[in-house]
């Protein structure tokens, strides 16, 4: 498990500044939730943590991000290897459509040249068990991943992400495309996973942030076209009961956004 420190990060899409001057420290073994109205840059920010922001044409960042002591934007650092340390789960479940359930979970290891069958077997079983999916799919590992329900697909994607044993797990609104029951299952899963991973979750659902996170960071924008900023970050209980900033209070009490 590793600590992530974001220092003075601004993120751009071409000339448009999407995130301005964000600094925050994300502690290991805790769940950090990023909340705020849509367009406030929270998704963009977590994509700077695994250097996925820069794969969008024209996108770039200023500032630095450290994984423990290492500057992941440092000159000698390979972004591909950074992403091996920092896993991600996306807004919509996106299992690889050409692959079976087994192959989906094994894909990260296989594509990183792990070939040993026993290693793969045990990693798949362990990851699916951690993701709470093993009992549901163990008898049909060779079926296509696309055949599962939406909630199962998302847990499959979580299993895929943790199979490569990352130090940090980023979740970008992982439940936004799911029904309430699947959402609850994912939230339970997050509770279990936080003992093993540093977890950052972006959500637009405040109840969810209150339920799953230990620390909450509130982002907002001053207006359309303005960059998103971090307003405040604190223990979740404090943010929801006694926030330091009136904008945060307006948002969490539902008066805004």
């Amino acid at each position, binding site marked *: 498990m*590793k600590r992530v420190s974001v220092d003075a990060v601004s993120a751009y899409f071409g000339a448009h500044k999407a995130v301005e001057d964000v600094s925050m420290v994300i502690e290991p073994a805790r769940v950090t939730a990023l909340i705020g109205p849509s367009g406030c840059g929270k998704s963009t920010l977590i994509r700077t943590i695994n250097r996925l922001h820069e794969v969008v044409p024209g996108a770039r960042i200023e500032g630095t991000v450290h*994984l*423990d*002591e*290492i500057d*992941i934007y440092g000159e*000698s*650092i*390979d972004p*591909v*290897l*950074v992403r091996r*340390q920092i896993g991600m789960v996306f807004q919509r479940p996106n299992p690889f459509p050409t692959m079976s359930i087994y192959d989906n979970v094994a894909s990260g290891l296989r594509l990183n040249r*792990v070939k*040993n069958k*026993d*290693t793969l077997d*045990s*990693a798949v079983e*362990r990851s699916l068990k951690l993701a709470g999916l093993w009992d549901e799919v163990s008898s049909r590992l060779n079926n296509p991943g696309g055949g599962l329900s939406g909630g199962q697909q998302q847990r499959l994607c979580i299993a895929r992400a943790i199979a490569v*044993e990352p130090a940090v797990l980023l979740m970008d609104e992982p439940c936004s495309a799911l029904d309430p029951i699947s959402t609850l299952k994912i939230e339970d899963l997050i509770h279990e996973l936080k003992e093993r991973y540093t977890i950052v979750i972006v959500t637009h659902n405040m109840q969810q942030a209150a339920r799953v996170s230990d620390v909450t960071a509130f982002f907002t924008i001053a207006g359309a076209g303005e960059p998103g900023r971090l307003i405040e970050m604190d223990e979740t209980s404090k943010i929801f009961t006694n926030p330091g900033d009136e904008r945060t209070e307006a948002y969490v009490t539902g008066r805004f956004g």
Partner: protein
Amino acid sequence: MPKGKAKEVARAETSSLALQLSKKRRITGDAIFANLNRASGIAVIALLIAMIWFVLSEATPSLRHYGIFSFFHTRWAPSEASLASSSPNPYGIVQFIYGTAIVSIIAMVISVPVGVGVALFISEVCPKKLKKTLTTLTELLAAVPSVVYGFWGIAVLVPALRPAAGFMENTLAKIPGVGGFFEGPFFGFSILAASVVLSIMVLPTVIAISREVFSTVPRDHREAAIALGGTRWEVIRTAVLPYSRSGVVGASFLGLGRALGETIAVTMVIGNSVLGISWSILGQGATLASVIANEFTEANQPFHIESLFVAGFALMILTLVVNVIARVIVARMGAATGRAS
């Protein structure tokens, strides 16, 4: 945790994190792959330049010998060529340019209205169940090889055109002004036969692109017209056609580009008359493409092959111009409707 896994994890933890993330740990497959891709992209550009260059350079000896402008007359008589004399130039190509143009234009005059009609029927009128079948059928038209169309033209179309040709030479030929285009005698193998075969061959192109264009008409345009109580035709006239006019023009130009270069079917039914222009569509003619296909393997006169390359170069430039115009029209339409950008 199984043994193999534990070992891997242990190994990962012993090496320092900085070393793990260092660029040196990975061979730069990305750079190799990216360059391979870029090289093949640039090869496409190089290919087109090379085509223009090599076709022109094969034509050059003849262009040098006779002079560029001496090709602009209507008689092609290779047997009169000699190495010694450069005048008169026996290789006139204007009749081929005329033949190429007239055959393609007649083909388009037939196939654009028919093709647009079929496309409208498929996209606006026909029941959903039939759509796929009809689309497949019209696409099969493109699957029939050129040489088969040509053979069918020889065996079936040429005799079948006799009554129509009779009507033309007896009736249309008497119309003052345009009568000359329909004068007899009808040779069977003729500009008319080539045009009709060609019109069938470009139909699938016109249908496919028009259909695509009609499918981009926004639903609410149509629904607005329907809500006003329009008949089906009025919906097409007020909502569909105005929206897709430039797309249909682009489709026609693409069909034209295809028609200009069509070779074998035309060669088989046009009669290959190279000695002058036949203004009548009932007469025989030749196109830039057909003269190449017809004479290439037997070209044995001085500057014969080289002059065929002159025709080839003219054909290439002609089709390039038409295709570029077509693509610009289609691209502009794409930009205007916010599609395919």
